[in-house]
């Protein structure tokens, strides 16, 4: 693995280079059937106000009870982030008045979060990596959804989302440019999805990020930061940072000062703008929630969860590189999404010789399969070619039964018509001809019929390729290319 970098792409201003300093707060919805403190369902897309318990609606005398599954998921996430797990944490009330918060406070964790410092290794261009520090992870309630477009005079409230468990994952200000920021969210999302602790669905808002951006002269003191709220697309995160950094640089270079504020990104205009209406200074009056005891669990509980963690992307990548000599890039592509890694693992499991064909299988998964899926807009889940079929194709190549070229034809047949690749090779006569006698005859015939080409090839050995093409053509592509090459070299004396 390459050495980590703590340096990003600098931005050129009129007064020289500027460094961007970025920290992120990612809100990840915990995968669980019920809410953080109530038994109501977390299912997405229900009719408004149908997944609401008495607790969620903050009826008088209702009390929160912690959902142990959410605790388990938070601890597992902490372990996946190589973070310190706090055996004792405290839920606090964050007090504010707004109709998205029926209780008048959000239950969150302020001074004592469930997870402390950790680290995420992110992949950058050119095989570089960067270590991004995690400051903390805490559990908190999501807010209700407000609908402002249903009536000219009123706003409507949908409490379905209210009280759903969120993990707020706070990074250290270790991110230095938009590429790193995108790579960080990508990696974080990947880890969460491997763990099954958050589905990472950004379109549904199940993973969203608040980004703190400031600029400074390289190595200089930190600048004043602005927070860009509620980003729910990795691409927009990149665009928002680029825009925001340049905006700040321009202001400073024009002699102005950055005002610490909250901003929103407008994806249509590609710019951030101030959320001035939320500018009033908030005093959240945090204090420990007296309805809830401190959250305590044993080290044994944590150890047990650690022992049952799935293999995470970094470990999987290292294993793919070590066991199958994949390039770090290829391994990275395969492990980025749990589904693609799983697919590749299934292909591996079905190969007749993993050691021999593992690397080739990776190439086929990445180049042929992913390429085709992307082109036709399919996801891996609805791939027309199954892992078993792809494994059979790769095994056929590895065994020398078919050539790579024939394999591409075979892949096409399997993609469009389906079927067992081995049977297809038999029934359609696609087997590679390795019978040297048969190949030799074809070679001899072609040499005899083309004396002029023979002369040219002897003078310019690279022209021998023409003969290879002719042999393959006559053999219907089934001749073993290696054998053809060797025979031609001998016969032409090149």
């Amino acid at each position, binding site marked *: 693995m390459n050495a980590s970098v703590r340096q990003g792409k600098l931005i050129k201003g009129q007064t020289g280079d500027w460094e961007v300093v970025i920290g992120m707060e990612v809100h990840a919805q915990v995968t669980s059937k019920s809410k953080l403190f109530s038994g109501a369902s977390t299912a997405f897309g229900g009719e408004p106000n149908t997944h609401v318990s*008495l607790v969620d*609606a*903050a*009826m*008088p*005398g*209702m*009390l*929160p*009870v*912690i959902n142990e599954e959410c605790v388990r998921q938070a601890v597992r996430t902490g372990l996946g982030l190589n973070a310190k797990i706090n055996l004792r944490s405290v839920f606090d*009330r964050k*007090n504010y*008045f*707004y*109709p998205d918060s*029926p*209780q*008048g*406070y959000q239950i969150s964790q302020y001074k004592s979060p469930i997870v402390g410092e950790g680290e995420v290794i992110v992949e950058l261009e050119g095989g570089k990596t960067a270590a991004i520090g995690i400051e903390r992870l805490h559990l908190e309630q999501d807010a209700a959804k407000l609908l402002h477009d249903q009536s000219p005079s009123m*706003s409507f*409230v949908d409490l379905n989302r209210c009280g759903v468990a969120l993990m707020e994952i706070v990074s250290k200000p270790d991110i230095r440019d938009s590429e790193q920021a995108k790579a960080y969210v990508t990696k974080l999302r990947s880890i969460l999805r491997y763990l099954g602790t958050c589905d990472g669905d950004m379109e549904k808002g199940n993973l969203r990020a608040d980004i703190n951006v400031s600029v400074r002269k390289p190595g200089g003191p930190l600048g004043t930061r602005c927070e860009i709220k509620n980003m729910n697309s990795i691409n927009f995160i990149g665009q928002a940072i680029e825009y925001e950094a340049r905006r700040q640089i321009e202001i400073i270079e024009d002699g102005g000062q950055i005002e610490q504020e909250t901003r929103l990104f407008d994806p249509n205009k590609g710019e951030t703008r101030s959320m001035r209406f939320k500018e009033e200074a908030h*005093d959240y*009056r*945090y*204090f420990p*929630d*007296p*309805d*809830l*005891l401190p959250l305590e669990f044993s080290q044994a509980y944590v150890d047990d969860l650690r022992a049952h963690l799935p293999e995470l992307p970094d470990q999987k990548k290292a294993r793919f590189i070590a066991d199958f000599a994949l390039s770090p890039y290829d391994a990275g592509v395969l492990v980025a999404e749990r589904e693609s890694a799983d697919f590749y693992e299934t292909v591996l499991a079905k190969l007749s010789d993993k050691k021999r064909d593992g690397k080739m299988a990776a190439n086929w998964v990445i180049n042929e399969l992913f390429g085709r899926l992307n082109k036709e807009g399919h996801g891996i889940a609805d791939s027309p070619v199954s892992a078993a079929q792809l494994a059979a194709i790769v095994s056929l190549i590895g065994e020398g039964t078919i050539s790579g070229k024939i394999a591409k034809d075979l892949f096409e047949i399997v993609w469009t018509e389906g079927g067992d690749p081995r049977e297809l090779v038999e029934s359609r006569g696609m087997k590679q001809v390795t019978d040297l006698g048969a190949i030799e005859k074809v070679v001899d015939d072609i040499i005899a019929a083309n004396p002029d080409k023979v002369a040219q090839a002897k003078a310019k050995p690279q022209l021998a390729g023409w003969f290879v093409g002719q042999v393959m053509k006559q053999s219907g592509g089934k001749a073993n290319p290696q054998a053809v090459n060797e025979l031609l070299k001998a016969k032409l004396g090149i």
Partner: protein
Amino acid sequence: MTDLTSMTIAEARAGLANKSFTSLELTDAHLAAMEAARSLNAFVLETPDKARAMARAVDAKIAKGEGGPLAGIPLGIKDLFATKDVRTTACSKILGNFIPPYESTVTSQLWRDGAVMLGKLNNDEFAMGSSNETSCFGPVANPWRREGSNTTLVPGGSSGGSASAVAALLCMGATATDTGGSIRQPAAFTATVGVKPTYGRCSRWGIVAFASSLDQAGPIARSVRDSAILMRSMAGHDPKDTTSVDIGVPDYEAAIGKSVKGMKIGIPKEYRLDGMPAEIEKLWTEGAAWLKAAGAELVEVSLPHTKYALPAYYIVAPAEASSNLARYDGVRYGLRVPGRSIGELYENTRAEGFGDEVRRRVMIGTYVLSAGYYDAYYLRAQKVRTLIKKDFEDCFAKGVNAILTPATPSAAFGVGEKGGADPVEMYLNDIFTVTVNMAGLPGIAVPAGKDAQGLPLGLQLIGRPFDEETLFSLGEILEQAAGRFTPPRWW
């Protein structure tokens, strides 16, 4: 039929069992008494139809031999307890005509055991008060009056309706809640028995919250035995309240009559206040002598942080209240006073919905939690709380079984007499009771005598955590020695 209302729960239980009368007869007698006592303003809602239906149902069960421990006993319910399909307001305008679709755990356990609900009892708004004068339904009259006087006295608070109704024979027992003395002080003012159980002994689920870390439900009854009977049904672990404790509920009644020989009773010197009325001093000495006569050993103990308890309480309780009451915003239920913006709707609704005392405490609570003040007030108050708790722990560690104190610094006072100019004057009522809430301990107030004007006075026993049984044993000795007190009927 009037004598049906003057029995204790224990007596009525026997009468129902041997079929001397039915629950319906018992219930009707109480409904009649309630109707005749409306001038006391103890009930804010009478539920006669529900009461009779429950009584009939329980009579049928009793006939089949299936009655529970409280079968057929008519009770009053403090309006802080959510009662399914029955208006629950915490005696605040802001809840308006709120009808909960759920039943509090404590009351559901009473109904499970066969009790009958007569109606909802008056209390200080959101249980904030010591005289029941802050209720949006108006003050409650104490059935006790000074000898030769027609002045209406307060029954104490916040459970003023509960205490008044039990003392005036309108119900056989009542639920109440105690955050700083709201069960024990009204019990002392009305010559009833009030129990504040250990924090976590009774579920808080379905009880309108005032200060979550201090609130605890308990009974008010006319005898120590009755309070023990009610406690057994009210107590118990509830998975819906994380702060409720999962330990078995003992047969509290079995503790009555148990020997207290050799028990160490602590007499805390810090409770001997300057300017304490001689009558209170005398009552305290007398109570100690009764326990000594029963074989207990008296020891002077020190609870050095007592003097900080009241100020610390008036930081912690309002802080929690300011947050607990944020949900009353006019958006989902209760009162809504519209405005041109959501901010205005909040302001209008809360300004009109909350009374003065509630607003005062919400403001105090908001202030002490504010940035820059949190450490100086809230955090420091929590530290004081830890020290108060430790005072008691040290005391119990020395072998003290229970602590005897006066319940209140005075007898009942007149409506409008206190707190008008200075709210602290009212807060001082809780001087002997708040420490118990701050430490999460059980306490019982038992009637022990009368002052020179013929008003009842009470003594308080403070116990070890989850040792309510010792309080019942000791409380009954005080009760036996002091005798029973019934107010002459004037209403």
